[in-house]
């Protein structure tokens, strides 16, 4: 059977490898559920049947940071906990994204006091902030969709630039046009 016949029978799509990769990436974001306090309950609702994050390919909460590419920080991050959050973030392979869920995570929220980090962007690169105390699951889905848009606009690098993986910075991998 010639190529012509096959194309006639099966149809075809033209695309680039890059857009194929970003398409796959954005529709299979595996969240690392960094559920530290009450916001985590709404994060569970986000994965549950009503809000159903599997519609966006994100139902697979990854309890191993090594298999996750989206960290949802849901809860009050104290100074003591910040080192743990950072350690888990560092274990996630690039490319990776971060959602700060809830006012506590975004700004310290109502906990304007000595043990609470006044916003996790003091030590993490945050891609999306979700307001609310706690935010509704729909708001978290909005953040997820925003991350998906961001992934779709990013340009994946397919080679590791000839460096040790430890030497590659996040910014080398994600080139936002």
């Amino acid at each position, binding site marked *: 059977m010639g190529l012509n016949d096959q194309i006639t029978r099966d149809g075809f799509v033209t695309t680039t490898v890059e857009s194929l990769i970003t398409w796959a990436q954005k529709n299979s974001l595996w969240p690392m559920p960094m559920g530290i306090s009450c916001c985590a309950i709404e994060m569970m609702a986000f994965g549950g049947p009503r809000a159903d994050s599997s519609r966006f390919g994100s139902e697979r909460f990854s309890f191993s940071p090594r298999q996750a590419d989206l960290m949802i920080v849901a809860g009050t991050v104290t100074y*003591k906990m910040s080192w743990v959050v950072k350690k888990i973030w560092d274990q996630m392979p690039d490319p990776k994204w971060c959602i700060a869920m809830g006012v506590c995570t975004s700004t310290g929220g109502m906990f*304007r*006091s*000595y043990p609470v980090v006044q916003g996790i962007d003091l030590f993490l*690169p945050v891609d999306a902030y979700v307001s609310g105390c706690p935010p509704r699951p729909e708001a978290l889905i909005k953040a997820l969709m925003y991350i998906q848009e961001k992934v779709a606009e990013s340009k994946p690098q397919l080679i590791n630039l000839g460096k040790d993986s430890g030497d590659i910075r996040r910014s080398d991998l994600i080139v936002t046009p």
Partner: protein
Amino acid sequence: MALSNNDIIQVAKAVAADVSVVEHHGDLTLVVKAADLLDVLYELKDNPRTTFNLLIDITAIDWAKPGERYEVVYFLSSLANAARLRVKVGVHEDALHLPTSVDVWEAANWYERETYDMYGIIFDGHPDLRRFYMPEDFMDEHGTPLYPLRKDFPLMGIPGSLPLPPKD
């Protein structure tokens, strides 16, 4: 059968003369001297009339006044009598020491560590008096240990006393 406040006061006064009593809407508080503290606690637990066998919490109050600046509070419960009781003891700011009550109730271990961590009150004889929530080296730039629930501790903490991971 029911344990009345008068019974509790009688039991406590039998072992320590200097016990003052505060009653508020039927809730009883005994204020004891530090020297009598362990005697009173042991008696309240072991006396068959009171049997305060459950230690609910230990905490402190900083009254921000000279002299007896702190007050350590013991919250007791008697399961058999369904009774509750507060025992308070004043602590002078120049002598932040109290005897440990770990020998009375095992549960006192962590409560005393927490009280030490937050107020700097030292419980003599405690088996493992380390900080509870805050890092071991929680101190200001002069090396003075910080106790966050004291009234002179700033609400937002002291910048630099708690490190954050570096941002890359």
